[in-house]
């Protein structure tokens, strides 16, 4: 048993629960995952008059018994961990639906406080709520607040403190929900709710045209919706990957600077070249490759949080759902895939906004086929060397190929891996709301720093492994043909003969490309012994135009980079799916490269 008192926040999505949690706990938060699932678990402390009360933010749900992951997590927590008080947060502008969950909570006999949030909006809408009557009918404490404006928070804290110290022994009825519960029961529940609402709430007769419906007239307009959506996506894309570029450059030069200085310093100390190489090429380069992602991840999460909090994210899903349904996914998956063109890492992390587990997994698994910006330098190098007159077209064809493979893969996965699960798209379209900046910044920071911690260790580990393989046995030149990686390259090179690029250097470049795709370019420079500037002239000695194209296809499709693997591992919480992704993408990449080379050869291309 715990000694400290605990409250748990329960409520519908979009009811302002997380805003309230942030206001209650300030920055005393810890974000983790619920065991075995990728649902976020937020834990924090609320301080009130010298008393420290532990607080848990449970996932947003509409009911306790439809068996979704969110609901199972919530129910298990309430039943097994027995929080002292459940703080049921409801959107006061929409009591009729919100109270359904409240009644379910009361049914399992948990001690509840009902928090009427969004009272500021209630006032604007001229809705009158008799909260004492509500308290009397439901037999629980009712507190009115406006979390985003921090109104009513002191009263709420006082009520929580009073209730928690009452020390009433309650026996929670741990009755399993009856899934065959009759439809009539729900009808009765809603009848009860209607009666309660009728007695306590007065909604003005005159219908006010809401700001939301005015905005939606434009945003969801039949002709304007799509163009507007693409403008929004384009802007996020631009801001994320272009605004972060100067920061990325700065970070890169800092790491370069540090590398050079540490290298000089190590030479001065007279350390062996092996130690030096480990620190420079392994540790510093490894940390650097993780940190350089950070600015774009921060920015991207900022925009995602902004879209979610403002209400646009749901609209974007609404607009694109029809298209995504055709490949067995839901609307929100589109956004995640689109972001993949910038960087697959944050794109994969954005998939956590999807409701169904199946959709989330498929979206994650097909994401690496979206050609991220790191692959562009490789395309550009080869296009410059071999396709001088059709550069744009060749690069464009690769992007299209990636999309086609993603679409086909989604259909395959749906058909063969998850055929039993049928997705249902049911989503609330919340009113537009002015985002609460502090919550957004907090959200952004939590998600991004989580990435740094978890994915960072995996990425770093892989970088070190590659370093070790490049430097051993002792005495060989870094990544030379005598190093382990060079030998591995020579061993696996033959499997690329059918694809037209069976030289060991190409194989080594692909192995290094797993660290980060753009590394393919610099690796080719190293293994050909000409440096980055000399590759352009060197390439035609090893590739024909056709094998250059098949190599580009391989670079597009094969094994995701270390950071992406890290993100997949983190988001799916499974090594199995990470391995699947590696094997699947390598196989697909190889097949496509071979097909293109062989068919191309038959057609007489060189």
């Amino acid at each position, binding site marked *: 048993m715990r000694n400290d008192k605990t409250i748990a926040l329960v409520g519908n999505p979009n009811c302002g629960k997380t805003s309230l949690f942030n206001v209650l706990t300030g920055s005393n938060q810890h974000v983790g995952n619920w065991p075995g699932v990728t649902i976020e678990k937020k834990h924090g402390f609320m301080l009130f008059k010298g008393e420290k009360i532990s607080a848990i933010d449970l996932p947003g749900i509409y009911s306790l018994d439809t068996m979704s992951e969110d609901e199972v997590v919530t129910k298990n927590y309430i039943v097994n961990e027995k929080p002292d008080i459940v703080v049921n947060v409801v959107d006061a502008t929409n009591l009729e639906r919100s109270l359904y969950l409240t009644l379910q909570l009361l049914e399992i006999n948990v001690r509840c406080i009902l928090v009427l949030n969004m009272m500021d909006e209630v006032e604007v809408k001229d809705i009158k709520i008799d909260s004492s009557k509500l308290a009397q009918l439901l037999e629980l404490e009712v507190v009115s607040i406006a979390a985003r404006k921090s109104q009513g928070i002191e009263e709420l804290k006082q009520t929580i403190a009073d209730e928690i110290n009452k020390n009433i022994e309650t026996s929670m009825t741990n009755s399993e929900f009856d899934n065959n519960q009759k439809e009539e029961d729900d009808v009765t529940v809603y*009848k009860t709710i209607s009666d309660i609402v009728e007695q306590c709430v007065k909604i003005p007769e005159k219908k006010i045209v809401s700001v939301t419906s005015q905005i939606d007239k434009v945003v*969801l307009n039949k002709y304007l919706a799509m163009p507007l959506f693409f403008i929004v996506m384009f802007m996020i894309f631009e801001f994320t990957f272009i605004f972060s570029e100067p920061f990325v450059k700065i970070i890169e030069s800092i790491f370069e600077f540090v590398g050079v200085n540490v290298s000089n310093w190590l030479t001065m100390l007279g350390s062996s070249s092996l130690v030096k190489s480990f620190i420079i090429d392994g540790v510093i380069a490894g940390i650097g490759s993780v940190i350089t992602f950070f600015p774009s991840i921060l920015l991207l999460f900022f925009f995602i949080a902004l879209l979610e909090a403002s209400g646009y994210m749901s609209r974007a899903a609404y607009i694109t759902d029809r298209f995504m349904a055709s490949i067995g996914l839901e609307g929100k998956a589109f956004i995640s895939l689109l972001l993949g063109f910038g960087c697959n890492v944050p794109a994969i992390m954005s998939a956590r906004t999807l409701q169904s587990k199946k959709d989330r997994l498929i979206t994650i698994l097909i994401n690496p086929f979206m050609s991220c910006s790191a692959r562009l330098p490789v395309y550009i190098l080869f296009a410059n060397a071999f396709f001088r007159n059709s550069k744009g077209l060749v690069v464009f064809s690769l992007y299209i190929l990636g999309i086609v493979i993603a679409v086909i893969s989604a259909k395959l996965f749906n058909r063969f891996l998850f055929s039993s699960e049928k997705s249902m798209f049911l989503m609330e379209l919340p009113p537009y709301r002015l985002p609460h900046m502090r919550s957004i910044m907090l959200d952004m920071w939590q998600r991004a720093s989580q990435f740094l911690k978890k994915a960072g260790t995996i990425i770093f580990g892989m970088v070190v492994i590659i370093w070790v393989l490049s430097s051993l046995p002792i005495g060989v030149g870094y990544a030379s043909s005598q190093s382990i990686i060079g030998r591995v390259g020579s061993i696996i090179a033959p499997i690329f003969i059918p694809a037209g690029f069976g030289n060991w250097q190409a194989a080594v470049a692909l192995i290094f490309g797993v660290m980060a795709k753009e590394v393919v370019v610099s690796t080719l420079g190293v293994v050909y012994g000409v440096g980055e500037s000399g590759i352009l002239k060197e390439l035609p000695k090893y590739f024909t135009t056709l094998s250059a194209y098949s190599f580009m296809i391989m670079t597009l499709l094969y094994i995701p980079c270390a950071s992406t693997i890290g993100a997949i591992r983190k988001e799916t919480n499974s090594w199995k799916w990470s391995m699947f992704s590696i094997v699947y993408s390598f196989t697909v990449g190889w097949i496509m490269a071979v097909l293109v080379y062989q068919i191309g050869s038959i057609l007489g291309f060189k």
Partner: protein
Amino acid sequence: MGKTLNVLNIGDSAEISAINLEARAKKRLMAMGIVPGTMVIVEGFAPLGDPMQIRVKQYNLVIRRSEAEKILVK
């Protein structure tokens, strides 16, 4: 067979009379307030014609036509 939710036009209002979906899907709909006896108003359709947006119990809900097809209204 009566009318189903998916054939209504924008601005039409109707009362839900029955839901012909399997238990779990039905349960999800009910948790969102879609139960027999509830009034709904069709607010609009997505630009590509699907899904549709309906107003129920003071909020807006997005539902695919394939599911709306299984919801009888009067």
